[in-house]
Each structure stands twice: as structure tokens, then as C-alpha cells.
């Protein structure tokens, strides 16, 4: 554990709506939340920095490190605002990124949309060359053919170039030659090669990842350069580290080469935040639940580590459906994201079923109760109707909610079509949105052979505390933590993240005739590569941890599971040892192993080099005394499915009042924690709120 006590560290998270800044100095944390400045996101960062620096009474020069995460890359892809990107690919394969899997994300809807590729066909060029799957040259790369492409590439206005050849994951010879050619002839283009960006087989995913990297690279590069300049000008001489989608940190230098790895770094910060909460409270098995205005993100955390994955989809265009976005093959924190948030719109479908989301009212027009012209009922409206939100104290008292508009919207869109009372309809909306989130969490867990019950739920984000008890009931969970500083969780999470880099590479070997030397050579080379990236950002002499994973399957299967390799070089008995480790892991994931009919094989290797995570030694300073309403309020209780009197307790008074039995509402500036009648709340030493189940939820029996 690194002790950051002597350092002054700052985390900055630029999200779509808010920019969060957290500064930690001498055991105290100072935070700021500002509206993001989309025209120049650096503006809000500088403003926020100024605020926390003056609040903490430090000078810019005192700051040791700034850790930064941004949605810039994600937004560039979603809003299609990236660079003019061209692609050079193998002759005969011009349309790989547009054809994809030839599948559809939905079976029955004839009006589905497929994602538009980032590089349109007119800027996809082909060149004669070909390797086979063993890396042998079937057709040499012809430099004259590259030369011949230059006029078209120029005419296309190329700013960034993706070089994507078949089987380049086995041998980079042709891609590297093409890169060298273009780098010499057009030094101002930013070039991404598939062997470098994502050296794994499956061309669609590799090419898509490479094109995305190229597409966001000029913008990210320019932004980072400008940010660093402004920091320097303002006297912040320290180093800046970037948050990666994998939950690790890297240098600006590495981030500029692999900007695709910055995608989803904000949510990754949230997961790291949850990992840190789990570590502080010694919670071995947790599930993080981050619910905001539009989406909810859920992540499994075991032994204080967030689950990781190598595949991710960005910019889904069909109801957040799998296969409706652009696939990225990069190391990511494995989260499931669904269209469920406070702004999710409720309605009744043609089958008389209550539906919630994924469409969202956003912040404009917003929920009906905002009175900004929204007429459709949202999850926030349902919570208001249930009495969980105080119409007067909303958003720190800055907004008065219109209960009349809520009741009208719920009546018209849900209660009347379903023949329900308005109260039941409102409860139904919250039940359905929780059901959607709980189902997503369970499917997500099953895909990794894990369970969700017996875990502790760590909830943050504006809408999560309203729904945690209902979620816990659905997931069979008995304990919930709502951490302090939940409102700026990602920025705080950045400060807990280690410097880390992961290299994944296709390395195909059957255990039947296993070449130990080749595997060790590949692992060593990957380790050196990852270490070089980490050393750039780690403090001198920092202790580095090495994690090596083999992605394995039975020979003949198509999908791999991860097997952690033992420490040290693989020995002569590695094949049988790996087979044993794999059989055991397979058994855990699928409940049976089939070693009797097939032997194992390695598809890819991954090496992660990381520093130790930064421990949290902070006491929070933020959140002044909240003097919103006290007493009781009539509200609907999900556990008993009846209306009850809820005790109203401001969060900052919790330490003095002791444990609070549900039903209760713990009020905060940004949100309210709804404690159902089967939970009891207490505040822990570090300010986190701990909800424990006191009874099972008793579902009303069939009448």
C-alpha cells in the first residue's frame, strides 16, 4: 500500500454534465463540482483546481500529481467529432469494419439501425499484401502500391491513418513497413497500426479498435498538450497521469499513443472508487452500483479488484443492445451499462406491460416534475410520487418540484392504461427499473461464472441511493454501503488508482505439444513492454506487481476464460500444470469440466504491470451541515409494499443520532438515501453509511 499522506494529489474527472475535482492534502480531502464547459473542457478544470487549491490553502506548486480522466474520447466517438480518418487495409477487405458480424442486434424489428463505421467507405483504401494465419507471406507488400495511394489519401483530407492488415497480430512486418512508409512521406499524420493497438485475432474487433484509436487521436493529443500548457502557465509544474479504461493510470505520453484506452475512463474511476471502499471496509465480495440520470453501471468486485474484460462496445445505437455499437478490444473494467437512470421514461407497451427506459428525458425537458415542459413520467417522478424525494429540498433546495405535473404524467402514461392507482403505478415504475438493473447484473455475473447474492452493494451516483434497498431485495443482498463523497466518486477513485499497463497478445499454443520456451519468451517480451510504460509514470523505486494471465479454452471451443499463471518462468511441466489450472477454473465457471474429451489450449496471453494502489487516509471535509427538513414524511415502503411514516434524518446528523431503523430517508444535498423497513442504517467512522438487513422482504401474497 502506498501512503499518500505526504503528497498533495488532485483528481479531475470531466463528465458529460459535471466536472469533478478532488484534492487530497495532509489527510483531508477537498472537492469541487462544476458544470462541464464543452467548448473548452480545460476551463472548468482550471476553475475547479483554483477552488480546491485555495480551499486547501496550498499553492499550485505544492501539488505532486494530477490524475485526470475525461469523456473526450468517448464523446468524440458518440458525437462523431473525431479526426478525418483514413484506413489502409488488405486488398479484398475494404468493408470489414462495416460488415462486422453480418448479424442484427434484434430479431423481429425490421427497422433496426446498425452502427455507422467511423471511417466511411470512401476513405477506406486497399493495398495488395497478405499473410496467412501462421504469419507466412502469401503476397508481399508492394511499396509502389502504397505510393499510389498517396494522392487519394491526400485528397481525402487525411488527418489520422489506421493501418489494418489481416493476421498482423502474428507478424507486424507489413503493417510496420506501411507505417514507416507513410510516417516518412506524411510526417504530420497520426498513424495507428492494428498490431500495436490491439494485437489479437478476430479482424473486425481489431480493425474497429485501431480505427477508433486513429479517429480520436488528433483531438486527444491536442487537448492534452493544451491542458499541460495551461497547467504550466498557471504554476502547476507537476506531472499529469491519465486514467485508463482498465482502471490503471498511465502517462500523457502513453495516452497520446493509445487514446482508445481512455474511453470510459470516468466510469472506471467509479469502479476504482468502489474498490477502495471495499478495501477500507474489508469487503471481499462487492458489487458497485452507479446510477445517474441516464444510465446505470454495475461492476463486480472481488478481493478489492474490479473485474476486467478485454472487449467493450462504445456508442451503441439500438437500445443499449449488445452488438449495436462499435466493438473495442482493449483492457477494460468489466461493467454492464444499461439505459436506466432518474430520467428514464416510463410507459406501457402494446402488451400492457409497464416499461422503463432506455429512452431518457435527459436534463431537458427532464422529468415532468422539473416543470420544464417534460410531460412523460420518469423514474424521478415515480420517486417523487412515492414520497421518497422532498419536492422542496431537491438539489440542495435549489429546485422546487411540481408534484401536480408528476401525478398527471403518471396517471396518463402508466396508472390509467394499467388500471392501477397512481401510487401503485409509481411503485411499479421503480420496481421495473430495478428489475432491469438487477437482471443486467445477474446476466453480467453469469457470463463470468459468478453470483451476485452474498455480495455487498456499494452505491453511488445521484439516483442509486433511492433504489438501493429495492435492488438489494432483488439481488438477495443483505448489506449496502453508501460511501461519503459519492457525488464525486470517480475523481476520488482516480486518486486511488495505481499506475498500470496491460499488454494482451494472441499467442496460440496447444498444451498437447506445448513450447515452453516460446511462451516464456512472449511473456518476457510483454513484461518488458508493460514495465516500460509503467516506469514512465511510477515514482522512482516504486514496487511493481506483475500479473500474468493466459486466456484458455478446450481445443475446439471458441471462447476463452482467464487463468492466472503461477509466478516465475514456466517450467518443463508447465503443460500439465496449466491443464490442471484451466480444468479447475473451467469447473468454477461452468460447473463441469470436459478434460476427458479435449485438452486445453492457450489463445492469448496478458501481462499487467502495476504499482500498488494508493490507500485512502483521508477525512472528508466537503459537505457542510445540511439543515433540510427533519421529522417524518409519509412515503411508500418497497419492503412491505405499503405507505409508512419515514423518519427524515440529515446525513450530517447521523453520527449523533446513532443507528436509524428503516423506514427512513437520509437526506443529503445531492440526493436522498431511502432506507426501507427491512434495513437499518448507521454511519461508519470514515463517513460511509452502512445499511444492514434486519428482515427479509415479505412480498404481499397472492390475494
Amino acid at each position, binding site marked *: 500500500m502506498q501512503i499518500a499522506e505526504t503528497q498533495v494529489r488532485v483528481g479531475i474527472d470531466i463528465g458529460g454534465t459535471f466536472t469533478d475535482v478532488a484534492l487530497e492534502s495532509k489527510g483531508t480531502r477537498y472537492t469541487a463540482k462544476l458544470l462541464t464547459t464543452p467548448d473548452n473542457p480545460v476551463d472548468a478544470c482550471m476553475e475547479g483546481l483554483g477552488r480546491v487549491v485555495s480551499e486547501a490553502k496550498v499553492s499550485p506548486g505544492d501539488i505532486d500529481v494530477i490524475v485526470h480522466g475525461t469523456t473526450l474520447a468517448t464523446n468524440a466517438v458518440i458525437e462523431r467529432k473525431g479526426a478525418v480518418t483514413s484506413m489502409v487495409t488488405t486488398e479484398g*477487405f*475494404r*468493408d*470489414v469494419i*462495416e*460488415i462486422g458480424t*453480418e*448479424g*442484427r442486434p*434484434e*430479431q*423481429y*424489428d*425490421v*427497422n433496426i439501425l*446498425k452502427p455507422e463505421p467511423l471511417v466511411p*467507405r*470512401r476513405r477506406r483504401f486497399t493495398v495488395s499484401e*497478405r499473410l*496467412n*494465419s501462421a504469419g507466412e507471406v502469401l503476397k508481399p507488400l508492394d511499396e509502389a502500391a502504397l505510393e499510389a495511394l498517396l494522392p487519394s489519401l491526400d485528397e481525402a483530407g487525411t488527418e489520422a491513418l489506421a493501418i489494418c492488415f489481416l*493476421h498482423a497480430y502474428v507478424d507486424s512486418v507489413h503493417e510496420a513497413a506501411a507505417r514507416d512508409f507513410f510516417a516518412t512521406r506524411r510526417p504530420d499524420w497520426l498513424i495507428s497500426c492494428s498490431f500495436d493497438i490491439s494485437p489479437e*485475432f478476430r*479482424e*473486425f*474487433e481489431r480493425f474497429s479498435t485501431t480505427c477508433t484509436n486513429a479517429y480520436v487521436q488528433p483531438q486527444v493529443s491536442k487537448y492534452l498538450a493544451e491542458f499541460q500548457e495551461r497547467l504550466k502557465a498557471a504554476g502547476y509544474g507537476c506531472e499529469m497521469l491519465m486514467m485508463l479504461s482498465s482502471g490503471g493510470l498511465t502517462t500523457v505520453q502513453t495516452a497520446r499513443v493509445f487514446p482508445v484506452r481512455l474511453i470510459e475512463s470516468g466510469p472506471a474511476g467509479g469502479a476504482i472508487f468502489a474498490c477502495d471502499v471495499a478495501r477500507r471496509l474489508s469487503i471481499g465480495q462487492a458489487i458497485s452500483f452507479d446510477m445517474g440520470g441516464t444510465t446505470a453501471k454495475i461492476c463486480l468486485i472481488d478481493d478489492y479488484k474490479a473485474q476486467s474484460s478485454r472487449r467493450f462496445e462504445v456508442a451503441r445505437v439500438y437500445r443499449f443492445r449488445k452488438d449495436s455499437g462499435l466493438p473495442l478490444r482493449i483492457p477494460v473494467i468489466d461493467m454492464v451499462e444499461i439505459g436506466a437512470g432518474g430520467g428514464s421514461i416510463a410507459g406501457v*407497451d*402494446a*402488451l*400492457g*406491460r*409497464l416499461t422503463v427506459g432506455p429512452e431518457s428525458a435527459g436534463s431537458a425537458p427532464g422529468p415532468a416534475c422539473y416543470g420544464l415542459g417534460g410531460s412523460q413520467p420518469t423514474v424521478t417522478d415515480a420517486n417523487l410520487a412515492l414520497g421518497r424525494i422532498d419536492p422542496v429540498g431537491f438539489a440542495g433546495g435549489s429546485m422546487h418540484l411540481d408534484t401536480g405535473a408528476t401525478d398527471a404524467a403518471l396517471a396518463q402514461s402508466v396508472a390509467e392504461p*394499467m388500471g*392501477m*392507482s397512481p401510487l*401503485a403505478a409509481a*411503485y*411499479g415504475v421503480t*420496481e*421495473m427499473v430495478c*428489475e432491469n438493473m438487477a*437482471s443486467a447484473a445477474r*446476466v453480467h455475473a*453469469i*457470463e463470468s461464472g459468478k453470483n451476485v447474492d452474498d455480495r455487498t452493494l456499494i452505491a453511488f451516483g445521484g439516483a442509486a441511493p433511492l433504489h438501493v434497498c429495492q435492488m438489494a431485495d432483488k439481488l438477495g443482498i443483505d448489506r449496502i454501503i453508501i460511501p461519503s463523497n459519492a457525488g464525486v466518486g470517480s475523481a476520488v477513485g482516480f486518486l486511488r488508482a495505481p499506475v498500470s499497463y496491460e499488454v494482451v497478445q494472441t499467442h496460440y499454443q496447444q498444451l498437447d505439444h506445448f513450447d515452453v520456451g516460446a511462451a516464456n519468451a512472449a511473456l518476457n517480451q510483454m513484461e518488458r513492454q508493460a514495465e516500460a510504460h509503467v516506469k514512465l509514470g511510477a515514482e522512482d523505486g516504486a514496487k511493481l506487481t506483475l500479473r500474468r494471465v493466459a486466456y484458455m479454452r*478446450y*481445443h*475446439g*471451443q*471458441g*471462447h476463452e476464460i482467464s487463468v492466472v499463471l503461477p509466478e516465475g518462468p514456466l517450467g518443463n511441466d508447465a503443460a500439465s500444470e496449466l491443464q490442471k489450472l484451466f480444468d479447475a477454473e473451467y469447473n468454477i465457471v*461452468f*460447473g463441469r469440466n470436459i478434460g476427458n*474429451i*479435449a485438452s486445453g489450449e492457450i489463445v492469448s496471453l496478458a501481462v499487467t504491470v502495476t504499482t500498488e494502489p494508493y490507500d485512502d487516509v483521508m477525512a472528508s471535509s466537503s459537505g457542510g451541515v445540511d439543515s433540510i427538513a427533519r421529522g417524518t414524511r409519509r412515503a411508500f415502503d418497497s419492503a412491505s*409494499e*405499503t405507505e409508512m411514516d419515514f423518519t427524515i434524518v440529515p446525513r450530517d446528523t447521523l453520527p449523533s443520532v446513532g443507528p436509524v431503523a428503516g423506514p427512513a430517508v437520509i437526506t443529503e444535498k445531492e440526493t436522498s438515501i431511502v432506507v426501507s423497513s427491512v434495513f437499518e442504517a448507521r454511519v461508519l467512522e470514515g463517513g460511509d453509511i452502512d445499511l444492514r438487513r434486519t428482515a427479509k422482504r415479505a*412480498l*404481499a401474497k397472492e*390475494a
Partner: protein
Amino acid sequence: MQELQLLRKQLIWSRLISAIEEQAQTVIRTAFSQSVRECGDLSAGVFNRRGDMVAQAVTGTPGHVNAMAICIKHFIEKFPVDEMMPGDVYCTNDPWLSVGHYHDVTVVTPAFHKGRMVGLLANTCHIVDMGGRGFGPDSRQVYEEGINIPIMHLAREGVVNEDLMGLLRTNVRNARDMEGDFYAMMTCNDEGARRLVSILEEFGLDDIEEVGDYIIEQSRDSIRNAIRDLPDGVYENETELDGFSDPIRLKAKMTIVGDALTIDYDGTSEASLFGINVVMNFCIAYTVFGVNCIVGPEVPCNAGSINVANVKAPLGSILNVERPMPVSARHVIGQMLPDLVFGCLAQAAPDRVPAEGAGAMWNPMFRGGKTAVDPEVAENSPTLTRDFDVITFNTGGTGGRPTLDGMSTTAFPSGVRTPPVEAIEADYPLIIWRKEFREGSGGAGEYRGGLGQVLEFGCEDGAPFSIAAMFDRTWQAPKGRHGGLDGAVGVVKTDAGTALKSKGRQTVPYGQKLVLEMPGGGGYGSPTARDPELVRQDVLDQLITVDAAAAEYGVVLTSDMRVDIGATQAQRSTMKSAAE
């Protein structure tokens, strides 16, 4: 609160669909056959004690799902539900009882709660080899097409039926993949059963009978209401397909009266003498899929939604064959049924139905090695590959849609995906030299048809190989709708220019490649109504030529690729007056 009971049923409904999706994901992650693990050629569902499907996985392909839904009744006829034991698993691949050819194996597992059978978990997967001639249309009788598994125990109280597995192992080309797939199918049902029981526990239910009835009734009513909204009438359509050697005529008469919809395929060609015949289960599966795409795409698939349309086909016709007719490549006919049905529905709901598309997938079944190619070719070839069998799943374009272009190179109606080129080449001695859009193949229209693709296949070192061709629309194009032009017809040839047949096993000689040019979708609406800017974009992307822009769309481009507005208006008015 009494009214919450309705909400509770809806929550359980949503939960069941999610649980079955978990089941489907499990088989994808554990299967051996590329068709299942990479391509999603599978389905999964949960059934009540009467054998009615209550929920189905979102993942999967329609031919399987709807046919599987019908076949469970046969299982419980043979093994009454109260005699089933925990740990029992049943299976069949009988084409007439299940999904229409031997490759699709259905595995059924009963789930138990409080000592009682509470539901059946089932899944169907396409197993690449089940013996016989292998996947292809060449057989004259079903007996040549592989090994038949009557409905029987795959496991009895937890013990795998080794007699069956032993028999299968000695009858197929790749025993390991076959056996691995059977295990995967059992594993996934176990997962489904576990989830089903945990749902019953959470909601305090004894079984899913009552909630199942609610789900089925709601779905049925919803489809019926949608049919009632269509004008009563008789809507006829017919189409001609390549057939094995002679053209095949499919005829449909759709009758809508109130909330009843009947489709009668009377007048359809007789059964083929080769293996492109469809059993009634499969005919119903794709017919119902076509109907529901238009009348109730949002209705989850279950016994309620799939039993509304009444489907009839004359016994002995190509859509309802009897034993011992061969059926292996039945998808080339069956997957054309949605377009046939769309042609009827387009008369009842003119603004909701896309133009015709490529329809049936183009799935070349490759075989290499000495035993696979013509004997004289094998003798004279300087090189041969090892023995191998592999299928790729490929597709053309879909038809233009009422407000959108057709989808290029996208499977419809099938829900199957194609494996990566790099994955195929890593496992087999095939080299895929080309896989890209087939320029100009999308039918012109206000909404253009999707483009087909061109694929070129060879073997390592130019070795000869054979394919079982099962392709269609090589002489009758996918038709446009409401003035849209037809898509391009498919082409099957070698790179030396030799035309190949669209059906049947053929050898591609040493040094040559197989070239497949897949059909494009038909256009929707008049091409002269298409936004000239969109036509220009299509030219810039080389989806159509400058000449086609002028000739088909009436859009004239200048030499620097801008729309010549004056010339375009003139050209379009000439075209319109010529048309009148």
C-alpha cells in the same frame, strides 16, 4: 395491494426472459461447433408442464426457436412429465419432430422444485457434422443425410447415456466437437433450471403455470389485436426460386378475417428430389416469424405469439414433405418464406413492409482432402489438404425499408452471424481472398436495397476442394417494392470464370478459387424520389457508379462530384414521363 399482482407477473416475465438469455449465453461460451460459438446458430427456451413455451432467449435464430417450440410436445408425449426424474436429459434431431434437419439437435432438461417437475428447459444447436453425406442438398433420401436420434434419454438421473454417445462417436466426422456440443447443451439447460428454481423461490411460487398462462394470453391477444387492425381480405403472393435443377414456385394466400390470419401455401411446387425440402415445423417457424416481424415485432416470442397465425401447406409439397424425402439444406427454401409473407402483408399494410432481400443465407459447406474432391482432380493435383469440413455463414443484402435503406450484408431472416476470417483460417486450410461489398448490387429506390457481398475462397497452396452449394436467387432477383428496382441476382463461379451450379456438391480444381457474389436487396419506393445528396454519397462511397446514379436515380453529377441540379431535374422529369 391486489393491483400489484399484475406488476408481479410482469416482473416474473421479464425475469424469465433474462434467465433464458443467461442459458443461451452459457451454450455460446461452452460449445465446440463454430456454428454455435461464433455464429449463434442456436435457440433456448423455457416451457411449462404442458410443453408450451413461456419465454425464449433474445439470442438465437428464428428457424430454431419457433420449430423448437413445437417439438417439446413430442418429448412429453413420449416421457410424461410426472415420470421425469431429476438429472434426466432428453434429446432428438429427428427432422420431422424437431427443427427440420439432422444438424439441429434439441436437448430438453426438466427442472424440479419441491420435488415436482416445474418446467422444461430446452435448447437447439446446429452441430456441424452428424454423419451421412454432411450438410448439403445432394441426398435423395433422408437416410443418406446422417444419423437420426429418436427422442430418447441423453442422460438418466445424472448419468450420460454412453450407449448413445458411443453410437454417435462412430458415425460422425468430428466426434470431439459433436460430443463437446452435447455437453455444452446439457450445461446450459442446467443453468436455466437453476435460474428458474431461484425465481420460483424468490416469488414464492410452486410452478410457472399461472404466470405462464398470463404471458401466453397477453402475447396472443397482442398479436390478435394487431391482426384485427389490418383490413380484412385475401392477399396473394408468389415467388419463383432456383430450385435444385428446376425452378420452384412458392404460392401463398393470406386470409385475414377479424383477428384470424391464415396462410395457405396451396399451389406450391411439389417436394424436390434433392435435399432442399422443408418439414412442416420449419415451414411454420419462418412463416410465423415473417408475420410477427410486421404485426408484432415487440411481442416476446412464446406459445402465445407463435400460435396465432394458422399455417397450411399441402402434404407432399416442398413446404411439408414426408419421410423419406431429403431435407438437409431446407433453409434455402424455408428462409425465403418471410419475403413471401411480406408480399402478402404489403397489400394489407403498405407502409410497413420492406422490399425483398437476399433471403436464405449463403452457407458454403467446404470439404477438403482426398475424399472430398472429384477422384480425377485428386489424382492430378500436385497438392491436397488434410481432410477437413467447415461451413461459413454468409449473406446478401436486405430490402429497402419504408423509411430506411436496406442493410448491406446483413442476415435476414436468419439470426446467425459469420465467424471472423482470421478464426476460420487459423482452424482450417482455407484462405479467404476477398470479402467485401458487391458494388452496385443494392436495388435502386427512394430507400436503396442493402448491398450483397463478394467472397473468394481458395485453399492453402492452391489445393482443390469441394463445396456443397446451397444458394438461391441466382436467376430471380429480390424484388423491389412500391417502384423500387430489383436487387442484383447472385452468382456462383470460379475465378477462372467457370459458372457453377447454385446447388449441390462440386469440386473447385487445383489453383482455382470459388467466387460467390451474393444478392443485393430490392429498393423501396421510386429511385427518382431519393434525395440527390444521398445518391451522391453512394457514388462517393462507390456503392453505385456515376452512370447508375444518372440511369437509375436520374441524378446527374458534375465532374467534381457535385449534384447538377438542373440536369438532375430534367433527367428525373424525363424518367417520370417515360414511366407514365
